[in-house]
């Protein structure tokens, strides 16, 4: 089976997040927990639905990923853009964007 991780948008600010091994939600796909088979995927989805009930995230779902040289990468282009940010604004990518706190 393809490897899968759970993605969703965080309720409070809408930012794309991934379910991590410690049940927290990571903004980086690199922090996600990977399901290697269907049973594991089902368990993750159940956990995510609970987090939706608990108002942490909206609309969680499984996405297909591939792990290459230790880097987790979504297979679908749409999910790649969600994981990295708009392809036309590298300055706003998840890797480089630092919110202006007004400080």
């Amino acid at each position: 089976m393809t490897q899968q991780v759970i993605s969703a948008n965080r309720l409070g600010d809408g930012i794309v997040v991934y379910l991590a091994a410690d049940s927290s939600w990571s903004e980086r796909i690199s922090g996600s927990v990977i399901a290697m088979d269907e049973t594991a995927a089902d368990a993750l989805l159940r956990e995510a639905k609970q987090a939706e009930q608990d108002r942490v995230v909206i609309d969680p779902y499984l996405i297909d990923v591939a792990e290459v040289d230790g880097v987790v990468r979504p297979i679908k282009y749409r999910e790649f853009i969600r994981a990295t940010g708009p392809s036309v604004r590298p300055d706003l990518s998840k890797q480089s964007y630092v919110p202006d706190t007004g400080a």
Partner: protein
Amino acid sequence: MYIYDEIDQTMVDQRVNQFRDQVRRRIAGELSEDEFKPLRLMNGVYLQLHAYMLRVAIPYGTLSAEQLRKLAWIARKYDRGYGHFTTRQNLQYNWPKLEELPDLLAELASVQMHALQTSGNCIRNVTADQFAGVAADEVIDPRIHAEIIRQWSTLHPEFTFLPRKFKIAVTGAETDRAAVKVHDIGLIAKRDVAGELGFEVIVGGGLGRTPMVGPTIRDFLPERHLLSYLEAVLRVYNQLGRRDNMYKARVKILVHETGAEKFTEMVEREWEQIRDTAVDLPAGERERIAAFFNPPLYDKAEDAAETLTRQVAGDADFAHWVETNVAPHKADGYAIANISLKPIGGVPGDASAEQMDAVAALAERFSFSEIRVTHEQNLVLPHVRQDELYAVWQTLKSYDLHTPNLGLVSDMIACPGMDYCALANARSIPLAQEISERFADLDRQYDIGELKLKISGCINACGHHHVGHIGILGVDRKGEEYYQITLGGSGAEDASLGDIVGPAFPYDKVVNAIETLVDAYLGVRADNERFLDTYRRLGADPFKEALYGVN
């Protein structure tokens, strides 16, 4: 400009408070997402790929300097320093936080702005010609009636749950800058032989999955009957529109399936029944609204034209900008200055907070504090003295807002596409960037002449591709981005839908394909013939041959 009365302001303020409470209940768990979603959409809040998105209405495309400054301030404080001007005369913020949206909306309300009628199956933000009130070829300022329609339609109990969204566009000029023939209702103001004011009424145009150029259902509707007639159209639609199938629910499908003639009869019959009882606007109210759109007190700018001539002669870059981006104004000594939001390699329609502030400051100094937003994703300073254009241009230059490309190939419409939009099949923006870079040489663009290129990332057609002289539509081929090219569309007074030229291209072949099409045109065009006219004269064959090597 229209200034809210107490009723407007109270309504908008109440909506903000309601929404604040709804957000609180959502976060506290009293509302599920299913319950909350329609509520947030009624306030212009979508969920997109990366975050929430807020769509702010800019009714009939008119902004004051104060409002634009507020939009810039909001972009900094609640977003990531920029906003996206859309084909619907809206501004979209891509990164607002749900928790902060009530405050954001309260800030908007403090400058008489809101996000109502930017989503849902209601009468959407009414759009108009961006040259309203200043166009040399205008019969009347169309914003008067756009505002009348806005007041009539906002919260009209009968029209909050239409079968589908409903878009109305108004123009008062012969040249159609508002794409009125591809709206659910398009209105063109005109005068009859006796000089009486009225409207040509077009119903059932639209883009999206089933594009249509709308038929005219009445050549001349006397002005005083406008609202009762619109009400009749909407009643027929409300009764007969296809609520069973979202894809068939727009009025264009009803008009198409019923036939324009029969549809017209139904509207006229409905109208006969209600015309004396429905809410046509009392003359006093019409005058009250019209007064908000009185022209500003123009100077007698006597030597302005002469000064401009001298400045144009002295600076070739400025001359290009004047030639391309400046349009005639109805007042002597004045001009309309178009500000391109399509710098070479830029994101069409995006403006940074700094750019918004700069334009607001220019409007204050040189354009009676007024700015317009165009459906082609550009901005306009509507009233600039001709002898002040040079100063305006110099400031624009320091903010990269001076690109002299209005109406040329790099002045593209592009929807957000897969970089932001949850419905997209493919990206639009990077393609637009690469095309504009390929045609970066302005002399080449001037030689090509008017060429309207429009890109959508999916069949919803937010980027108007069907009515592009060249249209590009993103499609998904087994997970790969492909692009279908259409030719011969127009959203102007000579409206038409483009034809698909042949098989779609993968992403990395599209820019070459566009260049091939443009070269094919240059090879066969007659004198001064636009791309569109060449296509109309010769048909698709020379273009097909150039692209695919076959006929």
